[in-house]
C-alpha cells in the first residue's frame, strides 16, 4: 500500500532516464511517457480512494522514523491534486506529441522535451507528497530546474530574455527558501512538517510571525502573488503552448499548495487572516486590470492567471473549513481550465499565425471547433453556471459571506467584480478573434507579436487533447457534489492537523 505513495515520483524519474538514454527511438519515447503518466493517474486515483476511506497513507523512506527521516505522505488534499495534475499532464503530453508529429513528422524526436517533461511531473508529485520542508525544497528544485530547460529550449532572443527573468527570479526565491529552512531549523531543530506544528507553537510570537511571513514570501513568488508576480506575464507567454499550459496549470498551483499546507499545519492565524485577504484583493484586481490592457492573447491569459491566484489566496485568507473547501475546489477547477485555455491559445495562434488580438478575426466561421473549445473553458473561468468555475466560485463567495468581518466582505465584493472583469476580458477575445472578418496577413507593426511556433493546420491529436481537458472541466461540474464532499473533508483535515500529525509521527509523540 505504502509503495503507491512513492510511485508518482519514482516512475517518471525512471522513465525520464530511459527516455534520455533511448532518445533516438522517437516512438519509444512517446509511448513510455504516455504509459507512465497513465499509470500515475491510476495510482493517484487509488490513493485518493484509500486516503478518503482510511486516512493518510505514509511512507517513511528507508525505514527511518519520522522526525529525522524522509517522510512521504498522501492525505486527501495531496491525493486529489495528484489526480488532477496527472490528468492534465497526460492531456498536455498528447497535445505536444500531436504538435511534434504535425511539425516534424514521425521520425524526428525531441531529445530533451520528453525527459524534462517527465522530471517536471516527478517534481510536481513530490511537492504534493513531501512531508518535510527540505524535501519540499528538493521537489521545487526538481520541478524548477526542468522548467528552466523547457522554457529556454530552442532558444531565440526572446526566449533567452524571458528565460533569464524566470530563472533569476526563481533562483532568488530558492535561495530565500534555503535561508528559511536554515532559520526554521535553527529555531526548532526539525524540518518535518508534522513535528514543526507542535514546535513552532512554543516559539515566541515575534519569531513565529517572522518565519511565517518568510514562508509566505518564498511560496508567494512561486504562486505569483502580487506584488511578487511581475515575472510571470513576462516569461510564460514566450514558451511553446504545451509548456505554457503545464506551467500555468501546475507550477503556480504547487506554490499555492505549499502555502496552504504550511500556513495551516505549521502556523496558526487569527480568523479571518486580514493580511492574506488584503493581498488576495490586490492580486485579483492587478491581474484582471492588467489582462484588460493586453493585446497579446498569451499575455492576457497570464494576467488572468495572476488574477485568479487571488481567489485561492482569498479562500486561504478566510481561514476556516468553508474557505479552504472553496480553495481546494478552485485549485482543481483552475488547474484544468487554465491549462486548457493555453492549449486553445496554441491552436488559435497556429491557425492565425499571430498572438495579437487586433490581427485576428472571423475564427468562429473559419474554425468552429476551436471556437467551441475556447468558449467552454472561457465561460468556466469567468464563473458562469453550470461550469466548474461557478461551483468553485460559489463556495468561495459562501465562505466570504460567512466570515463576518469587513475586510472579508470587501474581498467578497472584489471576487464578484473580478469575475465580471474576467468575463469582459473573455468577451473581448471573443469579439476580436472569433467574430468579424478574416484578416489578410499584412506586415506587423509590432515585432513582439512575431510567432516562433509553426503555423501549419492543427491536427486531430491536439484538438482531441484539448477536448479531453474541456470534458474534464465539464465532468468536474457534473460531479460537483462528491468533489465538494472530498474537498470539505480535506479542508477539515487541514484545519485540524491531528490526523496528519498522528499519521506521520505515530507512536513517536
Amino acid at each position, binding site marked *: 500500500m505504502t509503495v503507491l505513495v512513492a510511485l508518482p515520483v519514482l516512475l517518471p524519474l525512471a522513465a525520464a532516464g530511459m527516455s534520455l538514454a533511448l532518445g533516438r527511438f522517437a516512438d519509444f519515447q512517446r509511448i513510455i511517457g504516455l504509459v507512465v503518466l497513465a499509470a500515475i493517474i491510476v495510482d493517484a486515483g487509488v490513493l485518493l480512494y484509500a486516503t478518503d476511506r482510511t486516512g493518510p497513507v505514509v511512507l517513511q523512506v528507508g525505514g527511518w522514523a519520522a522526525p*529525522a527521516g524522509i517522510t512521504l505522505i498522501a492525505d486527501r488534499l495531496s491525493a486529489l491534486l495528484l489526480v488532477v495534475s496527472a490528468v492534465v499532464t497526460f492531456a498536455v503530453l498528447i497535445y505536444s506529441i500531436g504538435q511534434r508529429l504535425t511539425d516534424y513528422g514521425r521520425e524526428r524526436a525531441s531529445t530533451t522535451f520528453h525527459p524534462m517533461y517527465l522530471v517536471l511531473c516527478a517534481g510536481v508529485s513530490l511537492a504534493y507528497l513531501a512531508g518535510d520542508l*527540505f524535501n519540499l*525544497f*528538493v521537489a521545487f*528544485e526538481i520541478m524548477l*530546474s526542468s522548467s*528552466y*530547460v523547457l522554457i*529556454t529550449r530552442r*532558444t*531565440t*532572443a526572446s526566449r*533567452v*530574455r524571458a*528565460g*533569464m*527573468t524566470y*530563472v*533569476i527570479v526563481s*533562483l*532568488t526565491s*530558492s*535561495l530565500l527558501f*534555503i*535561508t528559511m*529552512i*536554515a*532559520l526554521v*531549523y*535553527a*529555531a*526548532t*531543530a526539525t*524540518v518535518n512538517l508534522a513535528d514543526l506544528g507542535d514546535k513552532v507553537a512554543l*516559539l515566541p510570537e515575534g519569531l513565529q510571525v517572522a518565519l511565517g511571513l518568510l514562508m509566505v514570501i518564498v511560496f508567494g513568488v512561486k504562486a505569483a502573488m502580487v506584488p511578487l508576480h511581475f515575472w510571470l506575464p*513576462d516569461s510564460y507567454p514566450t514558451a511553446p503552448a504545451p509548456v505554457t499550459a503545464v506551467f500555468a496549470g501546475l507550477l503556480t498551483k504547487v506554490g499555492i499548495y505549499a502555502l496552504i499546507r504550511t500556513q495551516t499545519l505549521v502556523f496558526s492565524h487569527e480568523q479571518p487572516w486580514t493580511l492574506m485577504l488584503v493581498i488576495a484583493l490586490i492580486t485579483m484586481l492587478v491581474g484582471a486590470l492588467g489582462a484588460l490592457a493586453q493585446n*497579446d492573447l498569451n*499575455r492576457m491569459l497570464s494576467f488572468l492567471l495572476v488574477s485568479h491566484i487571488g481567489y485561492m489566496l482569498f479562500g486561504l485568507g478566510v481561514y476556516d473549513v468553508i474557505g479552504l473547501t472553496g480553495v481546494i475546489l478552485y485549485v482543481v477547477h483552475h488547474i484544468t481550465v487554465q491549462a486548457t485555455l493555453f492549449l486553445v491559445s496554441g491552436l488559435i495562434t497556429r491557425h492565425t499565425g499571430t498572438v495579437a488580438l487586433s490581427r485576428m478575426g472571423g475564427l468562429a466561421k473559419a474554425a468552429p471547433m476551436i471556437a467551441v473549445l475556447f468558449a467552454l473553458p472561457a465561460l468556466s473561468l469567468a464563473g458562469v453556471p453550470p461550469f466548474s468555475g461557478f461551483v468553485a466560485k460559489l463556495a468561495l463567495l459562501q465562505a466570504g459571506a460567512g466570515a463576518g468581518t469587513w475586510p472579508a466582505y470587501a474581498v467578497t465584493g472584489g471576487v464578484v467584480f473580478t469575475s465580471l472583469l474576467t468575463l469582459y476580458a473573455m468577451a473581448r477575445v471573443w469579439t476580436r478573434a472569433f467574430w468579424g472578418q478574416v484578416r489578410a496577413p499584412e506586415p506587423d507593426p*509590432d515585432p*513582439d507579436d512575431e510567432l516562433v511556433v509553426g503555423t501549419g493546420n492543427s491536427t486531430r491529436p491536439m484538438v482531441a487533447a484539448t477536448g479531453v481537458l474541456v470534458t474534464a472541466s465539464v465532468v468536474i461540474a457534473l460531479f460537483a457534489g462528491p468533489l465538494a464532499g472530498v474537498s470539505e473533508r480535506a479542508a477539515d483535515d487541514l484545519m485540524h492537523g491531528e490526523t496528519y500529525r498522528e499519521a506521520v509521527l505515530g507512536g513517536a509523540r
Partner: protein
Amino acid sequence: MTDDLTVNFTMAVVLAALYSAGFYLLMQRSLMRILIGTVIVGHGANLLLQLAGGPPGRAPILGDAAPEQMTDPLPQAMALTAIVITFALTTFLLALAYRSWVLLGHDEVRDDVEDRRIRRLERRLAESEDEAQEEELEREATQ
C-alpha cells in the same frame, strides 16, 4: 535548539556581508554579475544552514563519540544537497549567459516587452507630434 544556541558573532558578520554583497550583485544589469551574486548568496545560505546545527562538535560517526558531543549531522546533509543544487543551477545560468552572448552580442538582461512597447508608443507619438508641428509651420509659411 533555542536554549543552547549561541550566536557566533564573526559568523553573523560574515553572513551579513555575503547576503548584502550577493543581493547587491543580483540587482545589476549584466547576467555575469547576477550569476556571481547568486553564487555568493548561495554560499551565504549554505553557511547559514551549517550554523543552524548549533556549535561544532565531534564527527557524527557511531561509536566514535558520545551522541551529546557530536555535531548535528542533519544540517550538513541538507547543506550538501543545497550545494549540489546551487552548483547545477549556476552552470545552467552560465550556459544561458553564453547563449545570450552568442545571440545578442551581450549578456544584459533586456527590458520586458511592456516597457519596450510603451517606449515605442512614446516614440510614435513624438513622431506624429513632430509631423503635426511641421504641417502647421508649412501652413503658416504658405499663408
